[in-house]
């Protein structure tokens, strides 16, 4: 289940940010998403936030939370799972 979520989040990141040169296998589970890792920037974060709310109902209000959540795909998946258990909803794509 958790591997499925990580894979889903990688696909969502690629699709949302139009990273045509990347496949899910190119994104390390623990690799940095921003800066030196995947090279995402603040505008990319805004796009991802909208996609995550739309697909999983999770809200990332600002960069303070974002810094922790967007550290890697694993931390993002952890956040989606945590928010889903708080809301009582399964952490599955809507």
């Amino acid at each position, binding site marked *: 289940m958790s591997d499925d979520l990580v894979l889903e989040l990688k696909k969502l990141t690629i699709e949302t940010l139009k990273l045509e040169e990347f496949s899910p296998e190119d994104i390390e589970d623990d690799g940095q998403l921003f800066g030196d890792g995947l090279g995402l920037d603040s505008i990319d974060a805004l796009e991802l936030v909208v996609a995550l709310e739309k697909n999983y109902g999770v809200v990332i209000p600002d960069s303070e*939370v974002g810094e922790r959540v967007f550290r890697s795909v694993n931390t993002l998946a952890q956040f989606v799972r945590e928010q889903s258990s708080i809301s009582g909803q399964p952490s599955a794509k809507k």
Partner: protein
Amino acid sequence: MKYDETELRVRFNEVDSWGMVWHGHYITWFEVGRMALLGKFQLLPKDFARMGYIAPVVDLKCVFKEPAHLDEEILIRTTVLKPTKAALTFRFQVQRKSDGKLLASGEETQVLLTLDGRMLYIIPQDLREKFQPLFDYLEEPDSAA
């Protein structure tokens, strides 16, 4: 989409040694248009700061179509796209008033930060309410159309 319009006459200091407006001045003109539009709705930088926010520019584009020249009257046309994320995207057109020729077009994106440097990923309610009159105005039919 409605554009707000501001008129300017090209000044001597804006023209380069080739007799055309230096490309960097178009960005200044975008700023003139942006401030004129935002000023109508108490959304100037000082108004943002009073509410506890700043809105730095993170992306800026300009495409140059035809040169402007000294003394020409130009129209700076400015609009803002309704946000789909926590960012404001302005679009600009610079037209020559005499014949309506499009001289340049551009786009600028601003993100939202708190005064202590936290970037907002969701537009807060107080800003949403403050922006609404601006977007209502831009959705009105263009009286010039």
